[in-house]
């Protein structure tokens, strides 16, 4: 698993990572906050532990819930003294979703992000998205926004099923 910026992974920091591995995203309860790339770092300095988390979208309503869930999991595992810091920079990107996270998204029926998000080019969004149900590439976007800010709505021409796509940002 990719764990960016893990500072000198001590045994305690390793335990914290293991605890965080069990904290699921409230909207996508099969993927952990670690696999979504929301947890950026577990820092240990002078015996003090700090968990660095980054929000996905600025207005994501799940952000507060995620922070509360992480706090609760840390407390329950005996890391009441561990601090939590919110870091905006570098800005979260879907590139930080781990390979395991991508597999879990797919198994949950959500197509993982593909390629890079378009900026100024109109009608040139994520052109080829693979259907998470049947694997077909013959799909089309129905709506730029799905059930949450991070997803758009697609349909598959092969199996005729609609699905959510995790947008690239």
């Amino acid at each position, binding site marked *: 698993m990719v764990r960016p910026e893990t500072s000198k992974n001590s045994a305690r920091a390793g335990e914290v990572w293991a605890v965080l591995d069990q904290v699921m995203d409230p909207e996508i309860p099969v993927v952990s906050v670690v696999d979504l790339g929301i947890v950026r770092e577990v820092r240990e300095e002078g015996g003090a532990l700090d968990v660095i988390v980054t929000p996905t979208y600025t207005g994501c309503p799940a952000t507060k819930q995620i922070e509360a869930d992480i706090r609760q999991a840390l407390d329950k595992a005996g890391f009441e003294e561990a601090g939590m810091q919110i870091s905006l920079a570098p800005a979260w990107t879907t590139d930080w979703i781990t390979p395991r996270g991508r597999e879990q998204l797919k198994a949950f029926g959500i197509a993982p992000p593909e390629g890079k*998000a378009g900026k100024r080019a109109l009608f040139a*969004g994520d052109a080829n998205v693979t259907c998470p149900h049947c694997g077909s590439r013959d799909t089309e976007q129905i709506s730029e926004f799905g059930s949450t800010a991070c997803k758009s709505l697609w349909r598959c021409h092969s199996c005729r099923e609609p699905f959510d796509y995790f947008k690239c940002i």
Partner: protein
Amino acid sequence: MSKVDALFETCLRLGDTALVMGQRLAEWSSKAPTVELDIALSNHALDMIGQAQLFLGYAGRVEGKGRDEEALAYHRQDFEFRNAMIAELPKGDFAFTVVRQFLFASFAEAFYERMLASTDADLAAIAGKAEKEMAYHMRHCGEWVVRLGDGTEESHQRAQAALDELWPYVHELFTTDDVDQAMIEKGILPDASTLKEEWLAHVKAVMARATLSLPEDDWMPSGGRTGQHTEHLAYLLAEMQVLPRTYPDAKW
């Protein structure tokens, strides 16, 4: 004006514009033309309000008088708001809302992209989040501008009317005053006035695809960024602020 005052003022301008844009978008919740658009506009609103939270939260820390983003959003009056006036114009029809969001997002995306290099670490960090979101709004609303402009006779007419009505207000986004200059000199803020040419080229290209004609530059109202607003802002604030003002200690 001290550096702290100028930075506080700058954060209010950025935060208030995002907040008022967000509040106008939120007025579409449950009222948009289709359920997909309802979700889209509500998501746009969430992005704008999220950005406002960050800017106003930082404004409160810069000011150092114990005001947080909630206090700044809910307990200031219209003349204390520093948003550009384009944000406060009533939401109008769907065409008006998407044309406004497109014009603003095209500006904001370019502005935040420059602000990534700000010498102020907090503003640079917020820009990193906001820039990605504004790029998405610009694309989504740009596609709708083309669909409406190059759509039916009625959608074309409505999109053109929206563009005509909004045009005078776009210029304020590119104005700079002493506060901006102080921030630009310190490398804290990009110079908005230098972005207009690039913005105009992009807008022109999209409007051409939308078969919409760019209005002539005529009157250019400004003053929102120093607290002089249209009559529309007070009504917006009355609705947005009624709950925290009526029940000051109410918790969600």
